[in-house]
């Protein structure tokens, strides 16, 4: 029998234990509980009512007003990519008239094509669907070739002024292609001769070709390049063609915002871009014709990307600057020498071959330096386009014309020009041209050919060589495929002044028309490529043209700029800025 004292002690211990457990547990409000305690005393049982304070866990519903606020994000400056481009001012932002480097770069950011060259890779093999949901299907119908495109749904044309954004449909695509095919509304109309365009339904477009083309020749016409850029019908009709040149409306990752004459163009990110909102907030595209200014702007941190100069010394110099990287990439604009066969003594193939043997490709290459320039051995650059001849192929055929000035002198003597002869040419003041002509002058002087070089401004040179002024023409150009290179430079229709469609056939050559036309009509890729090669072999055998090198694109940038893709080649002649382009501090 426990004494009252013992019971009291046990009770107290129990109470303490309870308190400890409560302290380790949930906090609870202490409550007063009236307990009936039975206390046994010796000899008697006493029932007492005792007030005991006991702390127990009690669930008490508590209403709390919780105000949830968003975590404030740190205020950051908008990411505006500042580009310094080699141009005095805007030319045209209508993609069907954008023929200059500065124009091509801008329209590339504002517009899309049905297909596109993969960012950073201008090879045909890397082409992929753009506005089209997939590659087109092709079928032959009554001798005509029909390509059918299915468009992506939900692609939005940029808003413009009072015109809200709207969904691009096949009506816009057909309108755009018809505009590109119109001589009065496009500089590229010749690319779309013999084509008809049809909107089958809102998302289906059919393109019918009178003359079938291989994918190699057809795809570039509907890609994000030149006439293949798709414009928005409502915008063009609302603005008119002239206004549209300075107020472009497309579907691309960036939208036109503002033009400050002679200074810059501002683009803003398109948040509704179908590939995702751009990482950049905008682009400031500055017109800066002086390379020293562009260089200073980049070094001073006022610019993020600049157009450099195709000179390995410039590349090396800028690469040593802290925080600056230099990118050298394709496509390469090919420098080719054309001999005017109508001007004596260049009408003699042996004289032309002698001049070829007198010239050293490596000397011309040294003017620009590798990797800015690389030698080519055929008019079509094998590194970038199908149908070009490699160095091995040309050397294997004995058509490389490796420099041999003694042989050149002998050949000239055999042709009756032991004392040499004199020629006079005009060159552009632009570095790329002037250096080549001046070096050619020095090289040909070693075999007794006296070449007088007159320097004129660039536009004047282009005008005069198209008037057949030069007996020797150096031309630097990029063309999107072998057919365009061969047609415009070596088809008889393209002979300057007198051709059916005068263009840039400065040599007046007319011996490979059939090869060019057969290649164009070929739908088998291998056959087509071989025909192109055969045409160029003939050109080299007759020494109509002497390919020198291609000059690549050179751009400097802050190290924090990430274009979002590797740089191999870009047809728009700039590094390519899209929704993946980003920059860090």
């Amino acid at each position, binding site marked *: 029998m426990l004494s009252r004292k013992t019971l009291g002690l046990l009770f107290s211990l129990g109470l303490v234990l309870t308190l400890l457990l409560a302290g380790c547990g949930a906090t609870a409000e202490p409550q007063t509980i009236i307990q009936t305690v039975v206390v046994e005393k010796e000899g008697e049982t006493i029932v007492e009512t005792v007030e005991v304070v006991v702390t127990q866990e009690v669930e008490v519903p508590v209403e709390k007003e919780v105000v949830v606020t968003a975590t404030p994000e740190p205020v950051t400056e908008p990411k505006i990519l500042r580009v*310094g481009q080699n141009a*005095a*001012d*805007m*030319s*045209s932002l209508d993609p069907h*008239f954008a*023929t*200059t480097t500065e124009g091509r770069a801008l329209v590339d950011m504002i517009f899309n094509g049905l297909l596109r060259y993969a960012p950073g890779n201008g090879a045909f093999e890397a082409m992929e669907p753009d506005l089209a949901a997939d590659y087109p299907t092709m079928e032959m119908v009554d001798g005509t070739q029909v390509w059918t495109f299915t468009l992506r749904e939900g692609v939005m044309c940029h808003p413009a002024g009072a015109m809200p954004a709207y969904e691009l449909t096949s009506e816009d695509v057909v309108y755009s292609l018809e505009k590109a095919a119109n*001589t*009065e509304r*496009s*500089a*590229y*109309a*010749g690319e779309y001769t013999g084509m008809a365009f049809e909107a089958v339904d809102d998302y289906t477009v059919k393109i019918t070709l009178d003359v079938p083309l291989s994918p190699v020749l057809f795809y570039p016409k509907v890609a994000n390049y*030149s006439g293949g850029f798709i414009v928005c019908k409502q915008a063009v009709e609302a603005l008119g063609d*002239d*206004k549209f*040149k*300075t107020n472009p409306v497309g579907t691309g990752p960036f939208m036109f915002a503002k033009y*400050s*004459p*002679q*200074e*810059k163009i501002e683009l803003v990110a398109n948040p509704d871009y179908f590939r995702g909102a751009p990482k950049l907030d905008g682009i400031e595209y*500055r*017109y*800066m*014709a*002086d390379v*020293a*200014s562009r260089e*200073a*702007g980049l*070094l*001073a*941190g*006022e*610019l993020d990307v600049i157009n450099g100069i195709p000179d390995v010394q410039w590349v090396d110099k800028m690469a040593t600057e802290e925080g600056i990287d230099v990118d050298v990439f394709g496509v390469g604009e090919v420098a080719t020498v054309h001999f005017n066969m109508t001007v004596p003594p260049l009408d003699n193939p042996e004289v032309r071959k002698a001049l070829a043997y007198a010239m050293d490709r490596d000397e011309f290459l040294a003017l620009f330096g590798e990797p800015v320039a690389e030698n080519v051995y055929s008019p079509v650059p094998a590194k970038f386009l199908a149908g070009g001849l490699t160095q091995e192929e040309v050397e294997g055929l004995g058509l490389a014309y490796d420099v041999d000035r003694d042989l050149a002198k002998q050949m000239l003597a055999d042709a009756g020009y032991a004392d040499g002869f004199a020629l006079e040419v005009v060159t552009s003041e632009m570095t790329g041209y002037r250096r080549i002509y001046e070096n050619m002058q020095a090289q040909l002087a070693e075999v007794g050919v006296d070449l007088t070089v007159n320097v*004129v*401004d*660039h*536009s*004047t040179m*282009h*005008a*005069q060589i*198209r008037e057949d002024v030069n007996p020797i023409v150096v031309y630097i*150009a990029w*063309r999107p495929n072998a057919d365009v290179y061969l047609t415009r430079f070596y088809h008889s229709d393209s002979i300057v002044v007198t051709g059916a*469609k*005068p*263009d*840039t056939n400065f040599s007046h050559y007319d011996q490979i028309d059939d090869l060019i036309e057969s290649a164009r009509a070929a739908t088998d890729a291998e056959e087509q490529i071989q025909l192109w090669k055969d045409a160029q072999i003939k050109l080299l055998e007759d020494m109509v043209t002497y390919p020198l090198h291609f000059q690549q694109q050179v751009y400097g940038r802050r190290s924090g700029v990430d274009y979002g893709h590797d740089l191999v080649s870009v047809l728009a002649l700039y590094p390519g800025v899209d929704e993946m382009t980003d920059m860090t501090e």
Partner: protein
Amino acid sequence: MLRYILVRLLLAIPVLLAVFTLVFLVVRIIPGDPAQAALGDYASKEAVEALRERMGLNEPIYVQYFRYLGDLVRGDLGDSLITGNSISEQVAYVLPYTLELTFASVLFGTVLGIPLGMLTAVKRNSFLDYAGRVLSLAGLSIPAFYFAILLIFVFSVRLGVLPSVGGGDLTEDPLRSLKYLILPALTLGLIMTTSITRLTRSAMLNVLSEDYVRTARAKGLAEGVVMFKHALRSALLPIVSVTGLWIASLIGDSVLTEYVFSRPGLGKMLVGAIQQRDYTALQSVMVIYAAFVVVVNLITDLTYGLLDPRVSR
């Protein structure tokens, strides 16, 4: 005076007409096709011909001449052959930048050049004089564009205290745009300073040897009064003439400065128009230049008359 001003303004009309006609003819003699320049070498012959037709370049030359002259008389500077933009709007945008640069340069040149010239005249044959003359000779010898690049590399690239690119936004933030004015104005202003310094020195030396200056000193006048009230006023006559010529030439000199600093302006517009064979823009800009020179010369003559009452009589 009013009659004098009116006569001068009336005489400006044939001057402007002559300038316009000369420019109209010269640009059409220069080889190069605006349509080809606009479309680039990739464009087909058909596209070039179509654009020439739209540009009105296939019309007889006298038709083009009188059409443009008629527009000019009505105050319409025409549209750019290349972009189709209104030339008037373009000029309205870039002209303030050129005027801003020109007058800032003149202000800098005169505020610095005249006191320096006076100082070197007063301290003749001292070290200060020799130093001033050497520096002014150096300043005259350095091409403006080279000087501009030097300033950019010092103040923008190395020190990072001033911008080197652009002209700022005159309409939205005129005060901030002043920062973009400093280096270009310094470029042209320092070169002008060297010329004004030499001229002021020479003029002051001539005046300081005059009898009336000796008389003023003999009367006990303070040297400052002698210099500024008597000597400088006479010396200012040739300085004003030259400054007027400088202002007119600065408009042309601003071409290279605007080019190097990538700053909008009439000079840059002119270069671009030449390169692109934009006949309309080229003609309009040259007419504006000519009008500016006429106005500046008129103001110079009037100022001369204020300084020397004998001229206005």
